[in-house]
């Protein structure tokens, strides 16, 4: 058993706090025991993936916690739910399921979570600082928090994520511990052209490659352009966390704790070094979806949720043209509020964009049941499209997605990738 403090023991025994707190402490302590963690550590932030409906049992459990007085004790954001609360009829679900999915989301707000309903909480104000111990769910958010913010979290799963937020504690194991953050594998991008590394579609492809090469190992990446933007890092982290169980990538010069290789490897040397060449990047890109010409049925953007900057870029690329197939932009209500104010929302709707807020097209039924081809600029959407929606993925840059949406068929610029 982990060694608990007197306060933790008092909560676990029910002497102190509500019954909901006792239940949550039991989940955290039992997990620590199963992992062999020596103790629990205090955390300062939570992000809850457990608000997505998987069945009635999870709803009943979260409602029980809320009724038993469980409240989050640290600032906590929510990941996507199964509903667009701002536009309920967008989701094709039977009424019973819709009600339960809504009850699950409500239980989380009752427990004091901020109703952000976004897989990009780090762009909705949740920015824990370097070294902060946090307990986040949602694989892309975990990878972003560790890699870009330098905060420390493992991939927290359903029920444990909310239990950590309620108790303000997490088992002391994995990426909470400095020694486990040491990189094992080095990916050297030095051999790739600067032109390739400036393209926005390079980053999700690189992420997918990292996930496949690293699996669940911590890796380091050298040779990343210094000017890499946050949305590009977001796309890379999401790709790596979708194709592999990646939770931390030391991007030399970007990751706060990895200003140089020596820091990433904590004074040691890589077990293995892989020199990434253009052929590996091209092959990975091709594996993400169809590359042949042909009709497309829709375009899905925003995995992770689109930022205001990405919405602005989409509008610029559309250049006043109208889309001939549905273009779904998945985003958070924080972003929607911003682009409502500056007129971008209306302009994008005029082009034919349909906004999907609080949720996204691969976690809940929004796309037509007929199936077809879904084009995307997201490695994560491409990875989950077929299994979760029945749509065959096609992958391209944002520019290619826009041109294809206008044409209604797949438009590529292969010369750039040759």
């Amino acid at each position, binding site marked *: 058993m982990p060694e608990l403090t007197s306060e933790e023991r008092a909560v676990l025994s029910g002497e102190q706090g509500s019954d909901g707190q006792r239940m949550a402490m039991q989940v955290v302590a*039992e*997990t620590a025991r199963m992992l062999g963690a020596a103790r629990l550590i205090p955390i300062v932030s939570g992000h809850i993936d457990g608000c997505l409906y998987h*069945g009635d*049992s999870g709803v009943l459990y979260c409602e029980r916690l809320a009724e038993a007085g469980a409240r989050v004790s640290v600032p906590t954001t929510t990941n996507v739910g199964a509903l667009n609360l701002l536009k309920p009829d967008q989701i094709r679900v039977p009424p019973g399921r819709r009600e339960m999915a809504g009850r699950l989301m409500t239980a989380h707000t009752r427990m004091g979570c901020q109703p952000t309903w976004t897989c990009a909480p780090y762009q909705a104000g949740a920015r824990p600082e370097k070294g902060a111990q946090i307990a986040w769910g949602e694989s892309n958010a975990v990878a972003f928090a560790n890699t870009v913010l330098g905060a420390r979290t493992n*991939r927290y799963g359903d*029920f444990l994520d909310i239990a950590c937020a309620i108790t303000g504690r997490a*088992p002391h194991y994995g990426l909470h511990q400095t020694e486990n953050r040491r990189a094992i594998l080095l990916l050297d991008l030095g051999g790739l052209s600067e032109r390739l590394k400036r393209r926005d579609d390079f980053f999700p492809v690189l992420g997918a490659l990292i996930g496949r090469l690293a699996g669940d190992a911590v890796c380091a990446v050298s040779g990343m352009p210094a000017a890499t933007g946050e949305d590009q890092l977001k796309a890379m982290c999401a790709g790596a966390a979708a194709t592999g169980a990646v939770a931390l990538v030391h991007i030399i010069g970007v990751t706060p704790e990895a200003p140089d290789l020596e820091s990433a490897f904590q004074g040691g040397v890589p077990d293995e070094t892989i020199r990434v060449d253009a052929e590996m990047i091209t092959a990975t890109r091709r594996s993400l979806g169809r590359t042949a010409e042909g009709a497309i049925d829709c375009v899905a953007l925003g995995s992770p949720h689109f930022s205001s900057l990405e919405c602005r870029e989409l509008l610029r690329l559309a250049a006043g043209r109208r889309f001939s197939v549905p273009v779904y932009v998945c985003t958070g209500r924080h972003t929607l509020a911003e682009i409502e104010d500056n007129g971008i929302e209306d302009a994008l709707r005029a082009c034919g964009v349909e906004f999907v807020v609080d949720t996204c097209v691969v976690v809940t039924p929004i796309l037509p049941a007929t199936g077809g081809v879904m084009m995307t600029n997201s490695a994560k959407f491409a990875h989950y499209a077929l299994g979760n929606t029945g749509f065959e993925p096609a992958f391209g840059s944002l520019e290619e997605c826009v041109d294809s949406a206008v044409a209604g068929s797949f438009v590529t610029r292969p010369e750039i990738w040759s």
Partner: protein
Amino acid sequence: MIWQGEALVAGTAEGPVLRLDGPISFWGGIDPQSARVTLGGHPQAGQVISNKILVVPNLIGSSSSSAVLLELLYREIAPRAFVLGQRDAILPIGAVVANQMNWNTVPMVLLADAPFATGDRISIDRDGRIEHAMANNG
């Protein structure tokens, strides 16, 4: 012969083994409403895991696996017990939570390189000891 595993979730069980020969993530790999293996191309695709002692040498951790196990337990279509080849802290949380809800829970034992094959009958005790059961026993 007796194999000594580590009881992640303590309990007793006896029954026929179903061994999952390929890596599997419970989320996306098992349908929580039918307990069927739905992962395309998996050696046990189409089989139902209910009521079996499920031997899982290679578990892929998915953060929603605990929710899938909880749903199986709530619907009373879960396996009788699990023998896991790797330490995992997500799947067992489903059993911890089911216990808090007073739903039936299942023993989970950690044992690397478990030699049990589909069709064997085995028994598990509270301390994580596993042995072959008599053919007509239970």
